């Protein structure tokens, strides 16, 4: 056995060393950072949905990744309704109209995702809350809902739309924007798509932060997160707050759906939300679940570290890097980098 272990160890060491490449990281540092921030801001938007729901309900909404997927389909359907046909190539519509179409598509995606999130809350979670079900039951329901939403797009949607939406293959892309380099710094080329994604995502995240911290509705959400019973006694409608929370999370996921498809046009697939959802959830936990700014920080950090990790260890280590980072952070800060604090962390 010891000989065996020795031999195995040798193989292990060999394969690890050959993969370790600090030069690749150094040479591509800025380019990787730009890409990482782009994906990170999408993770962040989706992570906010997880974090808000968790903050209010202490529930891991596993079906949130499908809400994101619905957002992708929502914006795609909106573009089709506007008269765009899938061509796989970029449309040249001029500046103003591109903006208008993008905004309309984003609103469409947000509407579909927001509607799906609220619907999910109504159909799946509310009856459970009425019955005071334990947390694990919510989780299983979320898994069930996740199956239902995916299979709906997989099998039912193509029947309803005559094969135009859904099905086994990814949607043929409708590209509104052609990625073109805007400026350089270091060896990084920043293109318009990346700028749009980062600016829009940060803008939305900032707006959400303001919404939670500076409006009446936001105060309601924070109150329920902090102490649901007292908040109810003080006249906050808990059901409304919960619905609002799902709505905000869904809207952001829908917006993320559009931004993601700008970057990955052929990612519109029934199973396309799953991996991203898990990553976004990991990002939320990384930053401190229940903490809005934590989700933002976690998303950006995860996006960037994943790419650095791939440059260092090889592209196949992407997800390993993400999960190891998560585990390491939780070892030293058991409630995430910024800690839980939508209301205040419970003991």
């Amino acid at each position, binding site marked *: 056995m010891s000989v065996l272990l020795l031999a195995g160890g040798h193989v292990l060491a060999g394969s690890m060393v050959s993969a370790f490449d600090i030069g690749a990281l150094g040479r591509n540092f800025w380019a990787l950072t730009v890409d990482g921030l*782009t994906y990170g801001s999408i993770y962040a938007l989706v992570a906010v949905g997880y974090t808000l729901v968790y903050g209010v309900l202490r529930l891991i909404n596993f079906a949130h990744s499908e809400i994101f997927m619905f957002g992708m389909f929502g914006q795609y359907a909106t573009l089709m309704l506007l008269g765009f046909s899938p061509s796989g190539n970029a449309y040249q519509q001029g500046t103003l109209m591109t903006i208008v179409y993008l905004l309309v598509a984003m609103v469409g995606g947000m509407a579909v995702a927001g509607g799906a999130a609220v619907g999910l809350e109504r159909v799946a979670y509310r009856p459970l809350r009425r019955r005071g079900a334990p947390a694990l039951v919510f989780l299983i329901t979320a898994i069930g809902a996740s199956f239902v939403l995916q299979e709906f797009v997989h099998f039912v949607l193509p029947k309803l739309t005559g094969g135009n939406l859904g099905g086994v293959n990814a949607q043929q892309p409708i590209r509104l924007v052609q990625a073109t380099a805007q400026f350089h710094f270091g060896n990084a080329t920043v293109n318009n798509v990346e700028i749009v994604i980062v600016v829009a995502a940060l803008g939305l995240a900032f707006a959400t932060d303001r919404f939670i911290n500076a409006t009446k509705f936001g105060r309601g959400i924070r109150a329920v997160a902090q102490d649901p019973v007292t908040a109810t006694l003080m006249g906050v409608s808990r059901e409304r707050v919960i619905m609002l929370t799902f709505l905000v999370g869904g809207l952001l996921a829908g917006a993320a759906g559009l931004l993601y498809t700008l970057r990955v046009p052929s990612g519109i697939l029934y199973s396309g939300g799953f991996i991203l959802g898990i990553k976004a959830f990991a990002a939320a936990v990384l930053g401190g679940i229940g903490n809005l700014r934590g989700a933002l920080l976690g998303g950006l950090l995860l996006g960037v570290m994943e790419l650095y990790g791939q440059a260092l260890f090889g592209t196949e280590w992407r997800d390993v890097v993400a999960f190891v980072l998560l585990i390491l952070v939780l070892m030293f800060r058991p409630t995430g980098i910024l800690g839980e604090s939508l209301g205040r962390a419970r003991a």
Partner: protein
Amino acid sequence: MRRSTPRLAGVALVMTAGLVLAGCSSKSTGGGGGGSTSGATGGSSASSSLSIQPLVQVDATGKKVAAAGGSTAADPAGDGSAKCSNISIGMAGALTGPNAALGTNILNGLKLAVDQHNKANAGCQVTVKQFDTEGDPQKATQVAPQIVSDTSVIGLLGPAFSGETKATGSIFNQAGLLSLTASATNPGLTTNGWNNFFRGLGNDNSQGGAIASYMKDTLGYKKVCVIQDDSDYGIGLATVVAKTLGSVAVSSCNAKVKTGDKDFSAAVQLVKDASPDAVYYGGYYAEAAPLLSQLRQGGVTAAFASGDGTNDPEFVKQAGDASKGAYLTCPCGPAPDKFAADYKAMFSVAPGVYSVEAYDLGTIMLKGIDKGITARGDLVKFVSSYDGAGLAKNYKWDSTGELASASTWVYQVK
């Protein structure tokens, strides 16, 4: 939500600012079409004219071979006088789950052949029995005994994937049931001593060797990045390609991606860093299309080549203009127009990867049935001594179940 307008206005402002940038650049690339209000549909470009065109037929060392020609392909209709009863052909593969697209292509190809046969031969109605493995080896072990115990099934088209074939091969072998695969390309499958197993296409070795030699010798590339996914198929193909390329394959950009990935930023950076003449991808179109788009977006202009897993109309649809000029190989010949038209008429989709092989292999089994074969063992014997042309190529097997002469077609997206 609706009433907190000041904040929303702020959001809108920020987003508009961002989107203006997008708009600016679309103008700078476009040149044409300055924001006409009715022009949403007018902006479509030339991608609809792109398609996968056959370029050249090569042997395992990348040398050009003359097209076989001459012999006409076997027709499933036969002479219309076949007599048989209660005979069926089984099909095993992924019909649901993430890999369902390939399984469906195969099933449809077989159904088309059987349909043409049954229409021509009123006295011999063959049925297709489909068995869904979901591409999962354990599911396959549950399905295989059902196939074996269904005595009306005298021949099997499948299993579709190498993994499930590894898990179930001994079941079919012990039952003496003909197992003709239209898609499992792992070279190891024919080394198990299964005398009932035949591969209807060249394995990874022949296809990978051919394209690698073609890239190195004919196209004259000096630096090639080999990228692979984590499927049995992709790993096998990329390994053979890298081995044949030898020093031409650059190890620093040998990126490995996962099946299901859509975002390849790091791989693009690696390739950009190495600035190769060409990129070879071993894997399926679902990943190849976004990979190629992102390579082009990242400013990589190197040529792109891939195997039969990418040789699907869906690849061109999803990658759009980025797919232009891509080299795609396939051990399969181009499908004749009539086949494509018949297929489209029956299933209202275009034939995909492995549809032609499935049709040909189905036809071979039907030929045997038309000869009056009713026993499983006789069909195995019939296939092992079969020699005839199909739509895609000439079918004749050696003693291990590999095609005797496996030539590879190189296609290009034009």
